[in-house]
């Protein structure tokens, strides 16, 4: 699998994500700077890392979503290339319009940084085939703006079409219907606030994130 990690000024999980991808796929991802206008030829997975791109100026993810490389990412997503956005990457995906809704300030205004329990809602996706339906997994979150909001019609549509991939199994940030991760209509774009790349080795306290990358490897290659 030929993966690419997009690096924005202020990304800080890009190397963790690269380690996870290399560990699982056996191949180091291309690290692609935000100012580039093209992805490496043959890229078959695009990963948008966590962090604080552009210092979260204006809105989290807003500036990154308008950076030159994102035009190539949107174009590739349209062709069906899988795109995984984690934390700030999820915020970037909603800001580009690849995913519906918005990620707002946590309901209690606090920065939440701890392992949380997540329920895997849909295992029939490119990203979640490594999990069992209804399984509860433990993956860390670390965010200030993870409060997922969308209008009721959008939320109903997400739920009725199986596009809620992960749901918090505990109160974390006030997200509508406890949504932690969603996929797009075509099924090739996943945005999630929790950090699977921070749960891939026993020393991390959980290896539940590993199966997301393993599942991806299986479905993509």
């Amino acid at each position: 699998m030929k993966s690419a990690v997009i690096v924005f000024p202020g990304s800080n999980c890009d190397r963790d994500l690269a380690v996870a991808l290399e560990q699982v796929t056996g191949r180091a991802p291309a690290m692609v700077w935000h100012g580039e206008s093209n992805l490496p030829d043959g890229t078959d997975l695009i990963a948008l890392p966590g962090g604080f791109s552009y210092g979260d100026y204006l809105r989290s993810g807003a500036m990154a979503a308008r950076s030159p490389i994102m035009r190539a990412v949107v174009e590739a997503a349209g062709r069906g290339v899988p795109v995984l956005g984690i934390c700030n990457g999820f915020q970037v995906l909603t800001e580009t319009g690849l995913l519906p809704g918005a990620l707002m300030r946590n309901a209690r205004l606090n920065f939440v940084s701890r392992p949380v329990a997540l329920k895997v809602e849909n295992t029939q996706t490119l990203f979640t085939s490594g999990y069992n339906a209804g399984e509860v997994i433990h993956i860390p979150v670390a965010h200030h703006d993870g409060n997922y909001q969308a209008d009721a019609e959008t939320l109903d549509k997400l739920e009725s079409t199986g596009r809620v991939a992960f749901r918090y199994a505990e109160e974390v940030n006030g997200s509508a219907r406890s949504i932690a991760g969603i996929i797009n209509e075509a099924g090739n774009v996943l945005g999630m606030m929790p950090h699977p790349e921070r749960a891939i080795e026993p020393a991390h306290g959980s290896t539940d994130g590993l199966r997301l990358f393993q599942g991806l490897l299986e479905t993509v290659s």
Partner: protein
Amino acid sequence: MKARVFVTLKPGVLDPQGKAIHHALEGLGFGGVNNVRAGKLIELDLADDTSDSDIEDMCRKLLANTVIENFRVERPENA
């Protein structure tokens, strides 16, 4: 030429920041505050031939996230 863009949360969108400000005002003893909503003011210094639709475009493409926010543009006559 100057323009001011006010970005506010749409009605019904939860505003935890506004809520916190409201509580703080109450904590300071200010009664009679029914509700607080926080937003942003963005001041633009523009070329004279910038049209209203150019500014609206800027708002829709970047300054506001129209999923959750409304915007209002003010162009003072003598600015």
